[in-house]
């Protein structure tokens, strides 16, 4: 009986120290990345002033993501989506999506299409989950996208259509 209890305590101690080691290692790795500035888009780790936000979302308030930049991240290995004017990296969540990654994959690198599909499927019930599982990358540059819409055929068509509707109304 004593042997079993000793073994059990040893196992628990081993697991706790193992987890502690992993967490410490990951934190120092993140800190090294930040100091060397190797993260794409100079993403900075942020926490709330109270320090209670352990959801290690990364953000840069000055980081504006254009549609062309967003649309580059459209694969299973690199999936960004825009929702409510913010861009999130949901790559790590893809394999964990309850009804397979394939449901989200077509919307990787998209803004409106993702938001529409997300709202249609979940309404607003899973918005908090999206904020938790997605890594915040930056603000979606809606104005910049409209100004540079000629560079993007999809947006150019949409704007033309809007203009035509506007003219008909006049």
């Amino acid at each position, binding site marked *: 009986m004593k042997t079993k209890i000793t*073994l059990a305590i040893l*196992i628990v101690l*081993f697991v706790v120290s193992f987890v502690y080691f992993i*967490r410490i290692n990951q934190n120092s790795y993140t800190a090294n990345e930040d100091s060397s500035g190797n993260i794409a888009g100079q993403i900075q780790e942020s926490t709330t002033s109270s320090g*209670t936000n*352990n959801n*290690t979302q990364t953000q840069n308030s000055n980081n504006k993501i254009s549609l062309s930049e967003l649309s580059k991240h459209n694969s299973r290995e690199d999936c960004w989506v825009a929702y409510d004017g913010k861009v999130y990296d949901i790559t*790590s969540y893809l394999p964990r999506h309850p009804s397979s990654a394939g449901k989200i994959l077509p919307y990787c690198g998209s803004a409106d299409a993702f938001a529409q599909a997300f709202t249609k499927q979940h309404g607003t019930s899973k918005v*908090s989950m999206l904020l*938790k599982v997605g890594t915040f990358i930056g603000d979606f540059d809606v104005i910049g996208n409209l100004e540079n819409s000629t560079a993007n055929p999809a947006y150019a068509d949409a704007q033309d259509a809007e203009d035509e509707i506007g003219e008909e109304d006049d």
Partner: protein
Amino acid sequence: MPMRKTRRTRLERKTIKMEKYAKPLLRIAMSLIFLYFGFQQVSSPDAWAGFVPEFLTSAIITANNIVIFNGILELSLGLFMLLGLYTRFASLILALHLFGIAFSIGLNPLGVRDFGLSFATLVVFLNGPDEYTLDFKLAKKNKKAD
């Protein structure tokens, strides 16, 4: 009426010989599943934080902390089950834990999978310690000592 002797095929005979591996195989396979998911949770808790129900979180206990604690629990009990230490206790806790997760996920492919896995863990609990577990070896050693 005399009993008719059934003739077993070669495959059946071989399978019967391997029956003794059924219990340890199930135990080890299930424990590896828990170890894998436990490791995933402690190594990248952010990815799992979304699954934590909101009523469990507060200002002090964040979703990430719950995920890490859950990971430690799964790693510890997974190791217990792998080594066969307190096999019944570990498998029962893990089975109930997985039942809870399956019910909270609901009726979708992920929930059904977890439901099946929780039943498999329950089978480990019902089987108890097999001959390749520490429970069995230690009990044998104690008997010899007596």
